[in-house]
């Protein structure tokens, strides 16, 4: 998917097996994007209406792309955060708690300090990101210093995060009404709301970190062989701590965009991010055992999941079927993007 080695000339043969598998998630995305309009076409043709495939599609339109963009951006930020962790071969399940805490603290500070971006309240944005970093750092400390597997450590930290958000709000929701902040959603450039561009900027930052910084490359080293990396003089504990901290920052960005999208910060802001983001990461072709994949994979994965969710409603699939279809499509996507020759077994 992504050129993890940045700047290397492609090899001679174009359609190798590895290459096809590498691009499979994008292929799946492409097929899905063409598949849903097909169902629309089918529906109209059956009803005897005129319908030119794709051209008359409501799904395959800029306006719907913007809608998918809006629904995908917060999840994308969270998924990018967890991508780094998964590349290291660990896992982070604390995102729901971290997102809620960041959203709530952001809203509190924002409103307390003026309630508009044009006052000192803008500082709430960096503060929220710092809070995310701190949550991630603590998560990393629990994992690295107490030597608790990340699955458990982050799961428990997720409880702590959600609990903290609840403690802070007492269960209330905080509305963030500032029109300038809300222009994340309401202002559009070239048909897409500002939040999509913000997400794009952070995606590029993540790509930069992944491909151009020592830390990013060290994630791959740790995921490829932690003991070897340690023996090469790499401070693996530090890399892990930094990784979880970085993930926390991206969770915070996700929280900001989630608040920007609905204008409400509450304990429930973080709900549903866990399974969606991890599913998206895996569907995008990043391997759960670490070392393979990257943020572009995650972009494709998040888009796949959101396109499916959007498309199912658009083609009018009965609600009770939607879960099953999502599940089956996820399995298909993962099957297609797994190189069975390179894995000896999967658990």
């Amino acid at each position, binding site marked *: 998917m992504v050129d993890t080695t940045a700047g290397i000339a492609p090899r001679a043969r174009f359609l190798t097996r590895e290459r096809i598998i590498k691009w499979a998630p994008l292929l799946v995305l492409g097929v899905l994007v063409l598949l849903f309009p097909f169902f629309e076409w089918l529906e109209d043709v059956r009803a005897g209406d005129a319908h030119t495939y794709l051209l008359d599609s*409501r*799904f395959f*339109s800029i*306006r*719907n792309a913007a*809608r998918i963009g*809006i*629904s995908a951006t917060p999840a994308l930020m969270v998924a990018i955060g967890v991508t780094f962790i998964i590349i290291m071969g660990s896992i982070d399940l604390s995102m729901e708690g971290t997102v809620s805490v960041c959203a709530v603290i952001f809203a509190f500070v924002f409103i307390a300090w003026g309630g508009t971006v044009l006052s000192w309240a803008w500082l709430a944005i960096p503060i929220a990101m710092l809070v995310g970093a701190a949550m991630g750092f603590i998560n990393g400390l629990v994992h690295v210093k107490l030597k608790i597997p990340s699955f458990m450590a982050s799961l428990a930290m997720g409880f702590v995060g959600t609990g903290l958000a*609840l403690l802070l*709000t*007492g*269960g*209330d*929701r905080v*509305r963030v009404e500032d029109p300038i902040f*809300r222009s994340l*959603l*309401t202002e*559009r450039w070239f048909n897409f*709301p500002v939040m999509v561009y913000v997400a794009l900027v952070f995606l590029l930052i993540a790509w930069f970190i992944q491909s151009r910084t020592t830390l990013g490359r060290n994630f791959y080293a740790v995921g490829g062989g932690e003991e070897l990396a340690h023996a090469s003089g790499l401070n693996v504990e530090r890399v892990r701590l930094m990784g979880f901290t970085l993930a926390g920052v991206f969770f915070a960005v996700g929280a900001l965009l*989630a608040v920007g*999208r*609905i*204008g*409400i910060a*509450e*304990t*429930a*802001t973080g*709900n*549903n991010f866990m399974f969606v983001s991890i599913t998206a990461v895996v569907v995008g072709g990043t391997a759960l055992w670490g070392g393979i994949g990257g943020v572009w994979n995650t972009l494709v994965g998040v888009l796949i999941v959101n396109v499916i*969710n*959007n498309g199912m*409603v*658009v*083609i*009018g699939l009965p*609600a*009770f079927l939607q879960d099953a279809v999502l599940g089956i499509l996820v399995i298909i996507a993962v099957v297609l993007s797994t190189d069975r020759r390179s894995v000896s077994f999967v658990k």
Partner: protein
Amino acid sequence: MSFIKKFIEQETTNRRDLLLASAYGLGGVAAAGLMGSGMARAAIADPTIAWSYRNRTNPYWNEIVSGGEAFVESLGKSKDFLTHLINEGSSEKSLADVKALLSKTNGDLALAIDTNDAPNARPVVEACVEAGAYVSTLWNKTDDLHPWDFGDNYVSHMSWSDEGPAEQTARVLLEAMGGKGGVVHLGGIASNNPAIERLNGLKNALKDYSDVELLDAQPADWDTQKANQIMSSFLTRYGDEITGVHCANDTIAYGVLEALRAEGIAGMPVVSYDGNPQAVELVAKGEILATVFTNPHWGGGITAALAYHAAVGHFKPSEEPEAHREFYGPTIFVTPDDALDFKAKYLDSVPTYDWTDFWGPSNGQIQYT
């Protein structure tokens, strides 16, 4: 008859007898003999008062809790006296927490509860009855479960008939749409009773508006973010065909409004339910055309009050008519015209209720169809 079958039958009979016995206040002796602890008694001097509810992330439950706390304070106690059991949407936790509390308090308990899911009401009630505690339920219970089958200990059940009010909001919506066009409905968790009733309300209203089409109805699980995504998908599927949105509650409406705002769509008629303060403000601004206030503050207070007063023996539930055991809660219809008045009266300063006027604001006995 096989041995096993005989054994099973014996056990069920024993169990029924036990329940029956304790239900009629005789169980104290029988149960004490069996379980080794003092069970149902006529009155409890100073029961623990507890509220068991879904979570604190929803303003609706916060209102319920505030009512419970107001009631406790009316007894001259600190509001910390109220014990909170939060089930996080898990029936299993709901039941387990109740049992833990029953065990901790040795049955000296006045419990107000929403059991999270209808089937969970029966085991909760049975556990309370068995331990001699007094329980009042809110919202969820199955139709075959009735307070009067359990003597005094199952004090009351309050619910709301949402079909009528939801139909009323739907009519406001349909009128605003000019009696034509297309409407979409975003519902709660599909199997929840209120979700079903509120959709039915819409359907009932639609019978009188043949020019309006119900384009789609999807469950948004009472969740703002999910509602937001579904609404934007609706906009893709139906585009301009949508001329009105019927939401199963306020939190869903927030998500819908934001989805509309993202598209720059203004003036789309939207109605909701529950009458949360923020929703009422939106009604006042005209962004929501109607919502239904179910007075959760009163509901939360009175449910706890019923359980408490029955527990301390201020009244004997079994001597009350059935209409006092199962009744509908109050509903107040809120529209832009009266939103500000309503807000001033009910939300800005919460009225002080008489927590011994159990049935004054209620809305008649629950009817089963």
